[in-house]
């Protein structure tokens, strides 16, 4: 059993909404609203959920780009929740981030040599064979031509730019990499190249990943465990196979059934078995009471509006499989049909 590299408990990030001259706070966007999870050394934890559910905010909290409003972030046994910039410096070596848009995250006026060597210089990392050699090794590692050291980001394709972002993240030999939609903007063939690269690098350098994405197929492929988020909370978390074979939370079930099946022979079955969620995700400024999913849930009962379901092991699931639902979906439960068009508010 591997130890926990990262542990978060009750983690919150509320972005204040202010009004008027004196910036009086009138409310808050509860982007991350109390999540508990652990990331074990050497694993890949996938983080999925619809747009706006707080995945990126969570990722930026884990790397302490953002400071939490509440709760605790513990990295390698140390509480880093409220460390200041200077205190965070060692952490910057150990935890790196890869972003979705490789273009906007690379300075267009810098050569890729400059871009990839920047973290080494900032952290004063000794490079016995010289900075250039260090960068060229990194370029080779991510499958780019080391000769391209002096080129600018615009001279590279999207997939190549994502490799540059990966090389930069690897420069400091981090322990944990938070990858925020690293392949979402790429074509499927390039996406597969980058996924394979991330897998190779993980085994070569014992990396731990938090892989954020909204594509459930990619997340299943790359993750050891997966957490499903909805409106700032973790709805379900489990080992990959447990989650995909026995999803318990109605939201997980709905999300999975919505993925188009690339098999035209099974088209009718896929469509018949689809749970069509109606309506939009409620606002994170004023999330529903009790269970946040209840306004779109076909299984909701009175208790769902009054009591928030804790994230615990349900039914006869293994201890690693946690679900936040009062009425988890049992194996072989018929879940087809649509959610009520006008669910109670």
């Amino acid at each position: 059993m591997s130890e926990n590299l990262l542990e978060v408990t009750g983690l919150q990030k509320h972005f204040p909404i202010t009004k008027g001259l004196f910036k009086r706070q009138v409310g808050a966007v509860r982007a991350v609203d109390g999540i508990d999870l652990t990331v074990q050394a050497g694993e890949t934890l996938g983080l999925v959920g619809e747009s706006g559910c707080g995945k990126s905010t969570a990722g930026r909290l884990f790397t302490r780009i953002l400071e939490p409003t509440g709760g605790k972030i513990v990295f390698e046994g140390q509480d880093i929740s409220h460390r200041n910039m200077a205190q965070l410096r060692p952490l910057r070596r150990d935890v790196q981030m890869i972003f979705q848009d490789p273009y906007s995250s690379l300075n267009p006026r810098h050569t890729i040599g400059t871009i990839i060597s920047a973290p080494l210089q900032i952290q004063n990392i000794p490079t016995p064979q010289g900075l250039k050699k260090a960068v060229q090794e990194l370029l080779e590692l991510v499958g780019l031509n080391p000769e391209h050291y002096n080129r600018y980001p615009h001279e590279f394709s999207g997939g190549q730019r994502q490799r540059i972002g990966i090389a930069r993240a690897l420069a400091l030999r981090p322990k944990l990499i938070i990858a925020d939609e690293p392949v979402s903007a790429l074509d499927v063939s390039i996406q597969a190249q980058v996924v394979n690269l991330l897998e190779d690098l993980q085994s070569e350098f014992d990396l731990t990943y938090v892989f954020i994405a909204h594509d459930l197929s990619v997340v299943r492929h790359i993750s050891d465990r997966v957490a499903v988020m909805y409106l700032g909370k973790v709805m379900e978390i489990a080992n990959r196979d447990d989650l995909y074979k026995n999803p318990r939370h109605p939201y997980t079930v709905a999300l999975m059934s919505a993925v188009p099946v690339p098999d035209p022979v099974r088209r009718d079955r896929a469509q018949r078995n689809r749970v069509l969620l109606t309506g939009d995700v409620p606002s994170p400024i004023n999330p529903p009471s009790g269970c946040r999913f209840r306004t779109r849930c076909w299984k909701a009962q009175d208790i769902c509006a009054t009591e928030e379901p804790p994230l615990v092991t349900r039914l006869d699931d293994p201890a690693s499989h946690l679900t936040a639902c009062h009425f988890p979906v049992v194996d072989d439960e018929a879940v087809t049909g649509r959610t009520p068009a006008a669910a109670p508010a």
Partner: protein
Amino acid sequence: MSRPFLEVKDLNVRFETDDGIVQAVTDSSFSLEAGKTLGIVGESGSGKSVTSLALLGLHRTRSNAKVTGEIWLDEQELVSASDADVRGLRGGKMSMIFQDPLSAMHPYFTVGSQIVEAYRVHHPGVNKKVARERAIDMLARVGIPQPARRFNDYAHQFSGGMRQRAMIAMALVNDPKLLIADEPTTALDVTVQAQILDLIRDLQAEFGSAVIMITHDLGVVAELADEVLVMYGGKVIEKGPTIDLFQRPQHPYTWGLLGSMPRLDREVRDRLIPVKGSPPSLINLPSGCAFHPRCPYAGRNGDRSFTEVPVLTGGVHSVACHMPPEERNRLFQEDIAPNL
């Protein structure tokens, strides 16, 4: 013998740019019957959108664009038709939904007034009240709650999924016979995507329109299309009935697309099998088969893959590749299919 409802023959689209001539679409031919759906797949830059814009005559306003070939829509040829004729069809007999609804909707007019306007352009005699009722009816049909109230909202007041619905309402307000959807769900969550695809399917069944669904998601194609075109470097490299194309894909690029894709309906594979390399430049396409720099089988056909452009051959399911069909089938059965 009458023509298919839509028939495209030897369509070529090129752009003159400072860097040289971009041959965006080369010798593309396909057809589509009313009530059917054609899926067009291919990676970024393969010419999918340029093809659809050509059908709508939208390259006419670009002075650097040259379109040749024939586009027959309901027995009328569009490449040689007058600007006025094409304008009369656009938004009427044929219409389009885009990936980004905000680009198609004006920020300063209400959603409702834009649908009204789209309707009145093609129904000049109709009074405002009738047009307004029609617009509200369309908003209701695409599942916008409280359509009479939302009629007065601006696009930015809608969520992403609602905006896409409103654009579909606008595209369908004149009962188009041909609907072109260019990545209509790419920017949306899967849950919203499922709603929108469901909507397009229902409306198509109701109106009997022909639909062209452009996407890079093979899952979307598998769920919606009757036939599929696979494009690479501006050319149609494989074409066939959807089931056939998924069960017996013929082109090495199509194999690569399938091998790249993790899928929920199968056991997890140890490893994805991507197409190596990156997409070709359309200014300077590789010689012979444009796919040869990325094709693991290029050397098997003597020099042909490097020197001779393969043409689309075969019956209903056709492919542009020099490999002999028997060898392709054997390769697929023995090496490719077991790893998908």
